[in-house]
């Protein structure tokens, strides 16, 4: 039994290191191709762009999101903003009506049907050349749209471009940890972009050529992760997705463990379900990197994190259990009178420790490269340590729960997630 356990441990360690090295090799290979957009970036042609904001009970944050779009450095007559009230039960509609006289803004109202239905309504109404979404709790950098559109201009094969999502004003430790995670995903997303392996076009401000939807159909419910599904559908049909590291979108992130837990269950659940739906892609070389690398590595990371964390947690529980037995057996007084001495001999030299150190170093390098790509002031931050600790402790729980839900097909909806928050994020 222990032998099998050790083999599983080695397999996960090997695969996890493989994934990280893959990213690193890609970075070293492509680093010169990372485009640095000038401050005075201009497009040869300014196409029409529609941006949809699906709104469900977001009265506190809509204005900020809409205003960030209105302040985009982009010709006003080329930008259409669709605000879709997806059956909000709060004051969202009244807040939206403040924009009713703005010629760039279209207000739509419908019964609650889920985020994808709201976005699809805007898709039906628009005839713009490009289309994107923005969550009502996210804000765009004023240069982001131009920077993204430059990617389409440079390569007419590019069908969608994902932005860099940055945590808006992280306050507590949890949000700072998420900030680090988002920084890391800037790096991984850019590398996946180079390899043609992006599997998510994030809800906030991924921009698509409108013909993607004309040719492949609108958004689907996709287990409440429509942004993953559309990317997989595009990959299946060979549509190129890229990533623009300096197209910043600032998003509010969960500020409590429970809110983060619910959000991640939805994400991981969606990933698993979409992976099942698109299992025909797996390991088929004609589908490229997404089939050979992205989806398998996503699965490895879920199983690996669960396995490694359960192992570590199991060892901690075993240690505490033994200490409790020891105290019960010899009493508190004798327990604290024992002579505890440090000896290097007892520092673990198991191979798995070396692999863990290598993995942590690779993760830290990923975060630093992500911060560099996002042009953050310092590439290293001590909050990386928060990130590693917090995620090591809580991530296995949402991953296990998501797997459990996936087995039982218990979906966690976006609207329910908002309803459960005591108050929408501000």
């Amino acid at each position, binding site marked *: 039994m*222990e032998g099998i356990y050790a083999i599983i441990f*080695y397999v996960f*360690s*090997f695969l996890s*290191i*493989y994934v990280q*090295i*893959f990213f690193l*090799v*890609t970075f070293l*290979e492509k680093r010169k191709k990372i485009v640095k957009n000038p401050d005075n970036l201009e497009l040869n042609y300014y196409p029409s762009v529609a941006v949809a904001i699906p709104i469900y009970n977001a009265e506190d944050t809509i204005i900020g999101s809409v205003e960030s779009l209105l302040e985009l450095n982009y010709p006003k007559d080329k930008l259409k903003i669709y605000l879709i009230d997806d059956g909000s039960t709060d004051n969202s509609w009244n807040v939206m009506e403040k924009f009713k006289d703005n010629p760039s803004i279209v207000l739509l109202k419908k019964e609650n049907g889920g985020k994808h239905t709201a976005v699809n309504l805007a898709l039906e109404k628009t005839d713009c050349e490009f289309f994107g979404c923005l969550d009502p709790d996210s804000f765009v950098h004023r240069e982001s749209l131009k920077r993204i559109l430059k990617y389409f201009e440079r390569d007419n*094969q590019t*069908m969608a471009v994902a932005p860099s999502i940055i945590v808006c004003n992280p306050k507590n430790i949890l949000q700072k940890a998420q900030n680090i995670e988002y920084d890391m995903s800037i790096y991984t997303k850019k590398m996946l972009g180079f*390899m*043609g392996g992006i599997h998510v076009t994030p809800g906030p401000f991924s921009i698509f050529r409108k013909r993607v939807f004309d040719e492949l159909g609108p958004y689907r419910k996709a287990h409440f992760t429509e942004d993953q599904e559309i990317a997989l559908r595009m*990959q299946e*049909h*060979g*549509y*190129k997705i890229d990533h623009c590291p300096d197209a910043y979108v600032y998003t509010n992130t969960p500020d409590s463990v429970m809110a983060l837990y619910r959000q991640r269950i939805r994400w991981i659940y969606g990933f698993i379900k979409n992976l099942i739906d698109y299992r025909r892609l797996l390991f088929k*070389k*004609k*589908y*490229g*990197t997404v089939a*050979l690398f992205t989806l398998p590595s996503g699965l490895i990371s879920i199983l690996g994190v669960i396995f490694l964390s359960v192992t570590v947690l199991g060892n901690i529980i075993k240690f505490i259990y*033994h200490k409790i*037995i*020891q105290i019960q*057996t*010899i*009493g508190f007084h*004798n*327990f604290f*009178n*024992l*002579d505890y*001495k440090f*000896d290097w*001999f*007892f520092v*673990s*030299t*198991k*191979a798995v*420790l*070396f*692999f863990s150190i*290598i993995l942590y170093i690779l993760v830290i390098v990923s975060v630093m490269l992500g911060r560099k790509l996002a042009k953050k002031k310092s590439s290293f931050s001590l909050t990386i340590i928060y990130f590693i600790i917090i995620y090591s402790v809580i991530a296995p729980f949402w991953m296990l729960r998501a797997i459990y839900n996936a087995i039982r097909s218990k979906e966690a909806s976006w609207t329910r997630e908002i309803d459960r928050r005591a108050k929408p994020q501000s």
Partner: protein
Amino acid sequence: MHQHEPNDWKKYVIVLFITSTIFIGGLWASNYFNNKKIDQLKSIEDKISVDLMSSETQFSLMQELSCKDVSTTVLSSELNSLADKIAYSENNMGNDDTNVVSLKKYYSLLEIKDYLLMKAITARCGQKSIFVLYFYKNDKCDNCTKQGYVLTSLREKYPNLRVYSFDYNLDLSSIKAMTSIYKVSDNLPALVINGKVYSGFQSMEDIEKTFPQLESIKKPVEPVKKTTTKAKVTIPVVTPVIDSIKAN
């Protein structure tokens, strides 16, 4: 359908090569440090062996010496952690590791030799000593773990309590001879205290109650001046931390 970019097979292979190198490097480093540890244990055991021989030689010479002249600095303080280290290595490298098994056998033999020598010295010099032979097994014996905790704690409290621990299932004829002499059954843990067998778990209170003479070898509260200890026959005890041995 659009066309995907061609797969970069070369990169997959290069990454596989790099990862394998790192992986083999990790295994090699682990093996290297584990061997270093084994070497360290071997050298401690060799040192103890030399110390024991020295002590035996002194004992043989005792006919011509008085007890207080027997300077038995056998089993130095390093020995106290030896059992811990062997137990730790067992955990890390496995019960079946030939190096670990061999170290454990050597260690057991040293214990037996020390036990016999100490008994002889105690008898000859009239020392107040209590000898505990502790038999445990590694598998499915929660009480062995608890017994280990008790003995570790007792050793801390009574530094001159001589505890010798033996893996009942270790394939060593000397251990089998001892279990046969003392009629130790496989109802473990088992303690042989001053020649008498106690099977099953014995709590601290049980042991302290059965052996009130433990009080006489209790750890002094005040540190004892060096001048007073110098003349004494103080042979540091083989004091394995049995709980760790069992912990596996």
